[in-house]
Structure formats: C-alpha cells, structure tokens
C-alpha cells in the first residue's frame, strides 16, 4: 500500500472538503428547481465531475431540460441549448466560417457547442450526420472548421435528451455513439408529494428565474482536479474490469461493454467517491454506478429479448454475481 502521509494528504482532504461543500451548494440549487430527484441530481453532478456527458432518456415534460438549465445556471457558466430537428446541419452545431467583408477574411462564428454546458434536446431527431458532429466534439473537446481547430473550454458537458416515445422519424443513436455518453438516466415522474410541492412553489413564476449561481466555473475546474486525485486501488480496478468482462461473457448480452466503458466507469466512481467525501474508491461506488454507466452500452441477446429481460436487469444480476475482491 502506498503510504504517503503529510502534505499531500492534507491538501487532498481539504480540497475534498471544499468539493463536498460546493457540490452541496449546487445540489441545493438544483433541487430548488427540480423536486424529489436527488439521485438524478447526484448522478448529474457525478458525470460533471467525471468530465463526462449525460444522456437523459424520458418522456416529455419531466424536467430533462430543466435539469440541464438548472445545472448550468447554478454554476454560472455559459449554457447553450440546441433543439435537434431532422433539418439541423452539422454547422448549426459547430459553427461556420463567414466572410467578413470589412476584413476581407473568413471569420469563424462559433456554434452552440462553444459553451460549458450544452443541452442537446431530442438528439434522436437529428440526422446521423448532425448527431455525429456533436459526438465528435464530445469526444475530442475540439471543433475543426475549414482546417482550423478550435478548442472547447472546460468544463465541457453535453446533456443530451432522448424521447423514447414518438419514435417515428427519429434516428436512434447507434451503439457506438451511445458509448460516448458516460451515463444514461431516466428522470422518471416525480412522487405525488414532490409534484404537489412543485405546483405550490413553481406555479406562479418560472423557477429558473429565481436561481442564483452558487459556484463558479473556476471552482468546478478545481473540483474536477480534486476528483482526478481520488485513489483507486488495484483490487477496485480489477473489480471494475471483472464486471465489464462479465458483461462481455454474459449469455444475456449480445454486446458487452467497451474498454471505454471501463475507463468511464472508474472515472465516474472517482467522482462518486469524492461526492461521498472519500478520497478512495470502494467497490460500492462501482456497484452504484454500474447500471447508469454501463446499461446503455449493452445490447440484449435474442434469448434475453425473448424473455423481456432488459440489459439493466442483466447487469444488476451480474453485479450480484461478480465477487468483490477481498484482498489488498
């Protein structure tokens, strides 16, 4: 075991405390807008701190966009929203080079991806060409237009939403593209009590108007740095690999999780641990995140489909079966 006492630890624990405090503020802020969805909010923060992207899949009107907006507004960073439609072009996302008659030069007009938080609404309605333009930005954190590469400033997080009904005329994201999202969540309908409260509180005015920023971009950046320092022991890494490997071997699954999934699972587990105030990852973090991080990358086998077993269920079963490492 690495024994590093002293300064590093001290700094680590201080930044951890700070992280917990900031995350707490952000959570409060978002929760003042979205009632009774604490696990969704927590996962959103986890993805943000893990430098990933989030795919929210749910029926209209449950607050997908609201969540994204609330997040953006509470950390006081530029947020852009793109409504995906079949006629949306890649340049509508990345930006275009326009001819400036005064300077007689082509000038780059940045598109909506040049923001810290980008909300892609109903991403499955856009053509594959446009979808892939966004996905490229997500992966590489840069945009290349007319041979010139423009870097995107961090933190950069895409929150894409998908509508699982009204599937006609849509282009569902292929597996390879779903793989780019760190996690997928479903918002779900609010509890009756939460819905009642929502009516009382937000009935009069749009809740977002009252939302004040509680953190700065710089703060979020430092939080991300703190998350990167979270310790992942070898057994935990092995456990993550075992779990991912099990998805590749399971007879219920036609397609298992990719190595990228392993990477993102561990990264998300770091953020999850940090949000719990821990400077090390435990298998519980991996177990908690296995379904949101892995499930959307898996394809069920014919047998599983025949038995109407969702990848989420198969995955939960695997989590129950794969043993946790019990030695250091």
């Amino acid at each position, binding site marked *: 075991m690495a024994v590093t006492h*002293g300064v590093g630890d001290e700094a680590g624990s201080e930044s951890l405390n700070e992280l*917990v405090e900031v995350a707490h503020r952000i959570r409060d802020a978002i929760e003042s807008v979205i009632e009774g969805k604490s696990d969704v909010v927590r996962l959103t923060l986890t993805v943000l701190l893990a430098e990933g992207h989030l795919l929210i899949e749910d029926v209209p009107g449950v607050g997908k966009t609201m969540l994204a907006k609330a997040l953006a507004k509470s950390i006081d960073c530029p947020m852009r929203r793109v409504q995906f439609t079949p006629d949306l072009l890649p340049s509508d996302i990345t930006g275009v080079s326009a001819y400036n008659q005064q300077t007689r030069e082509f000038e780059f007009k940045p598109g909506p991806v040049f923001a810290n938080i980008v909300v892609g609404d109903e991403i499955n309605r856009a053509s594959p060409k446009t979808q892939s333009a966004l996905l490229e930005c997500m992966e590489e954190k840069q945009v290349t237009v007319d041979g010139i590469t423009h870097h995107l400033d961090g933190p950069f997080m895409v929150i894409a939403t998908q509508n699982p009904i009204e599937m006609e005329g849509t282009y569902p994201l292929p597996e390879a593209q779903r793989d780019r999202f760190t996690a997928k969540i479903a918002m779900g309908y609010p509890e009756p009590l939460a819905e009642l409260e929502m009516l009382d509180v937000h009935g009069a005015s749009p809740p977002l108007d009252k939302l004040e920023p509680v953190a700065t971009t710089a703060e979020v950046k430092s939080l991300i740095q703190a998350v990167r320092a979270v310790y992942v022991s070898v057994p935990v890494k092995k456990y993550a690999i075992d779990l991912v490997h099990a998805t590749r071997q399971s007879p219920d699954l036609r397609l298992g999780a990719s190595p990228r999934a392993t990477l993102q699972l561990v990264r998300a587990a770091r953020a999850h641990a940090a949000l719990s105030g*821990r400077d090390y990852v435990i298998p519980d973090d991996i177990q*908690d995140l296995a379904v949101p991080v892995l499930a959307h990358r898996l394809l069920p086998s014919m047998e599983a489909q025949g038995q109407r077993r969702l990848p989420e269920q198969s995955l939960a079963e695997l989590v129950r*079966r*794969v043993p946790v490492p019990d*030695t250091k």
Partner: protein
Amino acid sequence: MRLPIASGAATGAVALTLYPLFSEGSWFWAMLGVLICTTLAAALVSRFAQPPFAAPIAMALAAILFMTVSFARDEAWWGFIPNFDSTAKIAELMAEGWDEIQRFAAPVPSTTGITLLAAGGIAFIAILVDAFAVRVRRAALAGLPLLGLFTVPAAVLNEPIAWPAFIIGALGFVGLLVSDGRERVSHWGRAVLVRRTRTTTTAPDAGKLVLSGKRIGVTAVALAIGIPALIPTLTPNPPFGFGVGNGFGPGGRNVGIPDAIAKLSGQLSHPVNAPVLTYTSSDDVPRYLRIYSLDEFDGQQFKSSSLRGRPEDRVSESVMPPPPGLSDTTPTVPTDQTITVSEDIEELRFLPLPYPAAQVIADGDWRADRNTLMVFSTEDDAAGLEYKVIGKDVRPEPDLLNNAPDAPIEVQGRFLTLPADIDPAVIELAEEVAQGATTPYERAVKLQQFFTVSGGFTYDLQTKGSGLNALSDFLLVGRSGYCEQFASAFAVMARILNIPSRVSIGYTGGTKSEGRWIVRTHDAHAWPELYFEGAGWLTFEPTPSGGFGQATARVPSYTLPQSDSADPAPGASAAPSSGPAASPGANSPAGGIANAERELGPTGLPVAEETPIWVNIGIGVAIALLLSLIPAFMRMVLWLWRRRVLNRAAAVPDDEVPVVAPKKKDEDDGWGGGEVIGGEPAGEPASVWSVEEPVVVAAKQENTFAAPAVEAAWAELCDTLIDLGMPKAGSETPRALGRRLAEAYPLDTEAAKALTKIATSEEKLRYARTPGETTPLVDDLKAIRRSLAASVSRGRRIAAVLAPMSALLRVRGLGERLLDGFDRLETIRFRPSRKATETATTEDVLESQVGSRR
C-alpha cells in the same frame, strides 16, 4: 475410440492385482505387451467401424501374434507368423506352465510357461471385457470378467490384496464406466446454441456429468476402503488397518507363514520377557517346541514352501501322519506333554509342538501338514489353548546314523537345493570343516563342533540380516550372530555337504518353575534339522547356549562327538561351554537390548488383553466422534490464532493522539449511499456528503500489526456469519454487509458500533490509500457474535460450535481441490485441443469467476 482403450486400461488395472501370485516381475511385461496388442486391435476395429464380432477375432489374433513373437520366435516364419512349429511350441510351453502351476504354490516364479499362461489368460479377459463394454455396450457387465480376474489372487493366495492395488483396480473399472457414460452422452446429439460462439462445438459438454461421475466413483472407492477400516467389529484388523487386507498381516482363510525370521529377532530382543506357554511333560525333560519348518533356501533366507492341510489330516480326527524318514526299527520313547498357550498370544495359528508328534489332542480345526508335521489352523487361534501331545523321543544309535542309506530322491530334491551363486569360499569352508569325516553323520557332528567349539563363534543379538552376503560375512568374517544365523549357516553348510537340511523356528524348552516348564518370549529360537534315513529329521544345535548364548538352548546327545560321549544317555546333555539348561534366573543378553524393539508380528507376542466387543464398538464410536469434531477443532484453533493477532495489535501503545479533521455534521438527506450501518444508533446521522470517518492527518508511526489484525477480524466476522447461517455474499462489500446485517438483525448498540468499526477498517485497508487508524478488538467480535447469535435458533448456535460450517467448507474446498487435481490429470493431452482452448474463453471463465464465491 476411447472406449476400447478404457476397457484395455481397466483390464490392465485389475490385472495388476495379480502381483502377489508371482515372485518375479517379468509377467508384468508380458501382461503389458499382450494388453497393448489386444487394445490396439480393438481400437482399430472401432476406428474402421468394423462389425462387432470382428473385435474378439482381431484381439485374439493380436494376442496370438504377440505370444508367438514373445515365446516362439525361433519357430515362427520370419519370427512372427505362427506356423505349426510355433503353435506346437506354445502348446508345449503352456503344458509346462500348467505343470508348474500344479507344482508350485503361489507366489510362483515367472517361468516362461507360467508367463505365457498369464498372458493368455489376461488376453482372454481383455477380449471379454472389450466384448461387453465396447461391442455390446454394457460396461457394467464388463465388471464380471474383471471381477473374475480380481478374485484369482483372493482365491489362491494366503494374503489379501494390498489396498493400493485394490484402489488401482477399482479406479480402472470406474474409468471404464466413466468412458462409457461419456460416449453415451456424446450420442445424445449436438447442443443447440443460439448464442454466437467462435467455434461450433462438436459434442455436448459432458464435462459436468463426467466430473460428478468421477466424484461418485472416487467416493465409492474411498468408502469401500474406509468403512471397513472404521468398523472395528467387522475386521480382524485393528481400526485404521485398512479394510481390504492391509497387505501385511495374514487374513482370509488361508494360512501363510509370516516372515518367521524377522519375528524371531523381534521376540528375542523384546524388552519384556513375557511367558508364551507353559507345559508339563511326563518325563519332566524340556523339549524344543517347533512352530514352523522352513525348507526352501532362496539364497537370501530360509522360507517355507506352501502347506497343505487336508480335511482328513485334522488332528481331532486321526493321529498325526507318520514322521518322514523314521523307520519303525529306530528306538523311540513315547512322551506325553500338556501344553497351555498364554491368553495374551495374538494370532498364533500354528501349534508349538515337539518333533515328531504322534498325536495332538486339541479343540478346534487344527490340521497337520503331511510333509513337515506342522499343525495349523485357518480358523482357530492358539491363544489360551490347552492341548495334549503324545510324542516320540527319537534316540538313534550312532551306528544307525553312520550307516544310514541315502535319502530318497524327493527329499534330496527338496532339501539339498542351493542357489547357484553361493559363495565358493563357503563351500570351501564346509569341505574343510568336514575333512576326515566319512559318513554324513560324522560330517554333521564335525559341523556342529565347528560352530560350537572350534570356529570361534560368538552370540550377538545385534547382528542383522540374512542372505548370501550375510551368510558369507557370518561364516568368513564376523562369526558373530544369533540363532538365526547359526541355524541358517548350519543348514546351508549341511546341504553343501550333501546332508538334507531345514531350519525350524519355535521355542526352546524353557525353564522350570513350580512344577511347570515356562517358555518365554526370549526362548524363541531357530535350529537346524538334518535328515537321516531311518531316523528322520534330527535336531542339531549350533547356537551357543548358556549365559553367553541362547540361555535355554540344549545340545542333543547324538550330536556330540563319539569320543566325548561314549554312552549317549537319553535326554542327558553335555554342552561344550555350559550346562544343558541354564539356571532359570539367567537372563539372556537379549534381555538387555531394549532399544532393538522391532515390528511385532502376529506370532506369539503378548499384547494387551483382548478387548471385549462393546469396548471396540465404543472405541469406534469415540473415534468417529473425534473425527467429526475435527472441523470444530480447526475452527477453534483459527479463532485462537486470530485472537492472538488482534491482541498483539491492540497491545501496541498509541503514542500519538491522531489529529482529527473537523467533521461535517449534516442532516440525513437520503441521497443514496448512507453510512455503513443504516440506523446508526449513536447519533451522527449518516450522510453521503459528510466526511464519513475522521480524516487523520497526523503523521503517526504505522502500527505494523494493524493490517493483519484488521484482516483477522474481518475473516473471523465472515466465518462467524457462515457458522450462524447468514453468510456474506461474494458480491457484498464490507459496507453493504454491515448495512444488510443492521437491517436484517436486531443488533444492540455495541454490536452495531463494532460492526461499523470492523467493516470500515477492512474497507480502508483494502481500498484506501492508507489504512484506517482504528483497529478492531477481540471484544468487538465477541459483541457481534453475541448479538447475532441471539437472533438465531439454539440448534443453529450449537451447530456453529460443534460443526462450524466455515470449517466444513474449508475441508470441502480442500477435497475439491484434490479432485480438481485428479481432473487435471485427465485433461492432460499430448496435443493442445483447439476446442479446449477456445471454449475456455467463453462461459468457463465467467463460471469460474462467479463460482469462486460459492
């Protein structure tokens, strides 16, 4: 393809149990050769899908071919094609072998004829087994010919088969059944696999079935060996003596002579000079009491050829057979002895008798061997037996002995045989000793003089060994030994001098006490007997007697030189060195050799009193109970060891109080996660957002005992849970386990705290950058155990102590690993199988991963 080979292997495995029938190993190679040939033929018939009836024919041809090549190569065309001559040669050899089998008793030498017969018989069994198992597909029936083969040694032999041989034979049959099962399963068809696999499997995976089959087989064999050993009343052998015959002691119905010579020295040097038997004699003269007569000298030592106890020779039904060679004209004096064998003698199945005995009156089925007049029983034991012997005291005149004609041919053939490689120096010595003697009797007397007087021999119990070199050493170099060496050397030299001789083992006449003659352990003795036509077998005594020799040895008068003893008075004796019968109190030097205690054989050694049967049963039950308590004992040892580890860690003083970072207090917001223990009773609500444990920032000397203590506490906790029937699931993390226990069982405050402590420290030890600062204590574990035990039934609590599941699982794991080792042996292949390597990458890996938590 696999089945013919399996049946060949099964035949071979069972044929191995024939080993005790042969005295040499060459039959083994013949068996191996014939089996390889027949199995090859059977495999080829299967390979080329020939009709079933072709197999026996092909196998018989293969066997004949093998036998021709091996035994009649010179007669056959081109050395291997059978023709009339070679067939005639084989028939002749077989007849010869048959003859020899009639003549010899087991173990027989591996003569050509006998080896040929053995090979032919094994080939016949192999053909039968193949026919049943492969052609008719009734593998179980193939057990019948195998059983036939298996019973051959049991029926012929004096000694039962050793248990390792039994195991090999049984496993051979199990292997045949397994192969048959596998073949059968492979005919069920092909598994339909919906899932994409990289290769299509050619046969359904019968591995699991085979595995359980093998396990059942191995268990059955183990039970067959183990249960008779554990049931003391079913076997004459002691517990743990291995049931199917231990390969050492006598058992079964036939009587074999145990290694009499080895026993002899053991008795002589036994520290306790216990009484073996007592007797009264009508003329109050002590006589040697013979038990065994050894007639064959194999170059190593004297052995007994086999005995024949025919029902009509029962001593209860008739008088004894006439003593060989004793003519009616030779003067004899009838004697009358009543012998009582001590109760403490174990497994004595031969009666100690004076030679020659005319009549023996004893209870039980005692039979006499016509040649040697040994009296033995296959059923009864001499312990405690009182019997009466009417004997003849032969008193031959020297004239009679001097003028004795040559011994009959059959006596010469049997009792003059010497190995060819006997040391020429010994022959020379014998001739030198006998120089000047004209008759065999004179030569014998001179020979005895040589041993007792002129040779300078000394008596020493430490001398070891027998055999040709030992013989030369004894005669030419050391000239020091005890009765065995003296008797053997005398007998060998007598044979060299053309006097038929044999060695007797038994007891000297003992010492007299309170009107009875008492024969003790240290009176065990070996002496030579020489044959003189007309007088029969006469005892000679080359061993020194008295205080510096065998204390109670006596020198018969007729063995003394004529000049010394002009009037050989019957019974009187004048030993050269000391009196005929030593004083009763004289201890032989053997008595002092306490450290030379050897293996005590079945003959005549006093042992502890015979235990009644209920005591035996009681001992058996007690042993079974003790065995069943082994897991509990293991568990206790483990706990004690862990307690030590924990206490050692707790004993390390805290030299520095750790600085604790400020801990955030926060209300429980229900955001998933939670503290290790849900419903923590001690205040401090759980919160994911709060720092769960005080973060220790001080640089503190690390407690090197802490990590083992944490591990020990965690392992103990897991074992406790298993024992109490609430085991940790493989996928359960320390945190999740703590949560589950707290939710499922009513833990008191102390136990809940202890649980949190153990789980947290284990979690930190495993996953954190630095292990935690708190070390669990023994009291923590006790508190948890107490609290959890209160929530289970009383029966479960008792079981947790007496038969702890965690220890049982460990034992089972050990057994499984052992079986897996056997399985691995089976999967060894000469070529790496594509199928094996590729399927290993699919389900097996996952199965092994998730299997390891079961």
